[in-house]
C-alpha cells in the first residue's frame, strides 16, 4: 500500500513471463505457483485473517476438481464450466459444514475440517459408479500449449488476491480480524460471529474450489488420492500460508512461489544438478543420494516450517521489514 506501483509491476511481469520463459517445464511450474496462490489466498482468508484454522483445504479443492471432471465425464459438458460451478458447489458444501462445525473453536474446528477432507476422500474412492474410485477420471485437455492454462491460472490468482484484498478493506475484513483476535469480545461488539465465520469460509471455499477445477482442466487426470490428498493439498495449503505470511494479502503469492520451488528442487534433485554431478564424476553413491534427496522433500517442508516459525513467525511478507533490516545490518559491516 506504500508503493501501489509494486503490484502492477509484478502483474506486468507475470503477464509477459511465459512469453520469455518458453520452456514448457518452467511454464508448468508457474501454472502450479499461480494455482497455489489461489488456494493459499483462500486458506489465508479463513485461517490467517479470520483465525479458524482450515486443515482440510483439499476437501474444497477436490470437490472443485471432481465437479469439473464429472461435468465432462458424466454430463458431457466442457470441464471449463467446472471453474464457476466448482467454486459454487464448494460453497454449497462449506455452508452446511460451517453452520454445524463453527460451534467448535480452535483446534476442534481444525480437526472437523480434517474429517471433512477424509470423508470426501473416502466417498470419492468408494462411490465407484460415480467417480470410478481409485481409477480416477480422465478429461481431455483443451489446449496443447501451456499458455492458455497459464493465463487462466493467472486470472484466477488475480481474482483471489483482489477478492481477499477488497474483503479485508471492508467492514467484513474488520469483523474477520476481530473474530480472530477475540471471539467473545467480537460477539459483545455486536458481531454475529457464526455468520461472519461462515461468510469467510464460503469465500475461501469458493476460491479453493475454483483452483481445484483448474487443476482438473490443466492436468487432465484426477483421482481421489491426489486431489483429496492430506499432505499434498491440505498441508501444502497451510505451508503456503505460513511461509508466505499468515494474515497478509501477498503472503500466499510469496509462499506459493517458495513452496513450489522447494518441492521441485527436492523432487528433481536440485533441478538435475545432483544427477549431473553423479554422471560427470561417476561416483557410485550419487544415485543413492539422488534417491534420498527426492524422497526428502516432505522432510524439507517440515524443516522449512520450523525455521519460518522460529525466525519469521509472521511469514516472509509479514516479517519483511525484519528481513530487510537484518539484510541491511549484515551488509553494513562490509561497507
Amino acid at each position, binding site marked *: 500500500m506504500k508503493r501501489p506501483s509494486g503490484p502492477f509491476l509484478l502483474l506486468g511481469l507475470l503477464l509477459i513471463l511465459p512469453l520469455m520463459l518458453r520452456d514448457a517445464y518452467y511454464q508448468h511450474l508457474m501454472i502450479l505457483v499461480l494455482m497455489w496462490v489461489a488456494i493459499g489466498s483462500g486458506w489465508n482468508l479463513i485461517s490467517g485473517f479470520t483465525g479458524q484454522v482450515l486443515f482440510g483445504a483439499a476437501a474444497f479443492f477436490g470437490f472443485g476438481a471432481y465437479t469439473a471432471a464429472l461435468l465432462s465425464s458424466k454430463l458431457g459438458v466442457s470441464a471449463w464450466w467446472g471453474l464457476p460451478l466448482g467454486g459454487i458447489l464448494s460453497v454449497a458444501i462449506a455452508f452446511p459444514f460451517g453452520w454445524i462445525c463453527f460451534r467448535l473453536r480452535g483446534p476442534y474446528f481444525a480437526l472437523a475440517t480434517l474429517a471433512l477432507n477424509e470423508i470426501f476422500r473416502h466417498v470419492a474412492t468408494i462411490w465407484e459408479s460415480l467417480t470410478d474410485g481409485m481409477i480416477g477420471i480422465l478429461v481431455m485437455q483443451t489446449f496443447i500449449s501451456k499458455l492458455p492454462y497459464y493465463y487462466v491460472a493467472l486470472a484466477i490468482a488475480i481474482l483471489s488476491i483482489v477478492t481477499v484484498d477488497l474483503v479485508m478493506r471492508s467492514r467484513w475484513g474488520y*469483523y474477520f480480524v476481530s473474530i480472530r483476535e477475540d471471539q*467473545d469480545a467480537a460477539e459483545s461488539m455486536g*458481531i454475529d460471529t457464526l455468520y461472519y465465520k461462515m461468510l469467510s469460509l464460503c469465500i475461501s471455499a469458493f476460491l479453493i474450489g475454483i483452483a481445484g477445477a483448474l487443476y482438473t482442466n490443466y492436468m487432465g487426470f484426477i483421482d481421489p488420492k491426489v486431489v483429496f490428498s492430506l499432505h499434498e493439498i491440505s498441508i501444502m495449503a497451510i505451508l503456503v500460508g505460513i511461509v508466505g505470511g499468515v494474515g497478509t494479502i501477498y503472503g500466499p503469492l510469496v509462499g506459493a512461489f517458495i513452496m513450489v520451488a522447494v518441492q521441485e528442487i527436492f523432487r528433481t534433485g536440485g533441478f538435475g544438478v545432483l544427477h549431473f554431478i553423479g554422471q560427470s564424476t561417476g561416483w557410485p553413491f550419487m544415485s543413492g543420494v539422488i534417491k534420498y534427496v527426492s524422497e526428502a522433500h516432505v522432510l524439507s517442508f517440515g524443516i522449512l516450517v520450523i525455521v519460518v516459525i522460529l525466525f519469521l513467525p509472521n511469514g516472509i511478507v509479514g516479517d519483511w521489514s525484519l528481513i530487510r533490516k537484518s539484510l541491511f545490518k549484515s551488509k553494513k559491516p562490509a561497507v
Partner: protein
Amino acid sequence: MAFFKVQGIVKFFGGLAAVNGVSFEVKEGEICGLIGPNGSGKTTIFNLINGYFALAKGEIQFQGEKISGLKTHQICQRGVGRTFQVVKPLKRMTVLDNVIASAFLRHHPRSDAVKLAEETIEFCGLTHYKDKIAKSLPIASRKRLEITRALATQPKLILLDETAAGLNPHELEEAIRLIKKIRDSGITIIIVEHIMKVIMTISDHIVAINHGMVIAKGTPAEVVSNPEVIKAYFGEDYRA
C-alpha cells in the same frame, strides 16, 4: 415500564446456584452500582444480561422487551454494551481499528465508522494512543479501550465490569470523570466495582448481592449502613 428490569434470574454452575433469584430495576439515565464480595455473582449477572450465559430461570427486559434468550450480538444490537473485567482488547489491531470494528455496528460506510470511532476515542481521551497496537497499551488505557469500544456500538445501556480495578489514584479520578461524562451523554450505566470510593461517589442507586442473592437495595448511604451488607463484607463480629 421500567427501562431495564431483571426478574428472578437464576444460573447454576453444576449444583451451585451462582445467581439465585436476583431482581432489580434500573431507571433511564441513572448509574446503578452492583456491589458484593468476591464470588458473589456480579460478573455472572453481567454475563447473563449480556447473553453470554443462558438463564436457567427468570427474565430480563430492556425497554419493555424481553432480551433474555437472545444471542450476545443481538443484545448488543438492541443497545446494551459491555466491558470485560479481564480486558479483551483485539490485540494485534490498532486502537483505532478496535473502535472502528465496533463502530461498524451502526455506521455502514467505512468513512462514517471511522468518524464515529475517532470521536469516541477523543471522548474517552485515548487520542494519544490512537495508532498504537492494542496489546502495547498499559492496563489503565486498555480498560479505557474496553469502554471506548463498547461506546462505539452506541448503546443505551452500558455494563461496566470493574473498569477502575488496578488503577492508581490519578487514573481513578479520570475513570470517575469519564463514567460521569458517559452518564451525562444520556447513557444508562450499570457498574460493578470493588472500589468504594468510585461506587459511592457516582451511583444513584446500589444493589448489593451476596451468594447470588440480593441482600440490599437503595441509595449508597442506605446500602452501606445496612447490617446485611456489613455482615457480608466484614463477617458477624462487625454487625452493627
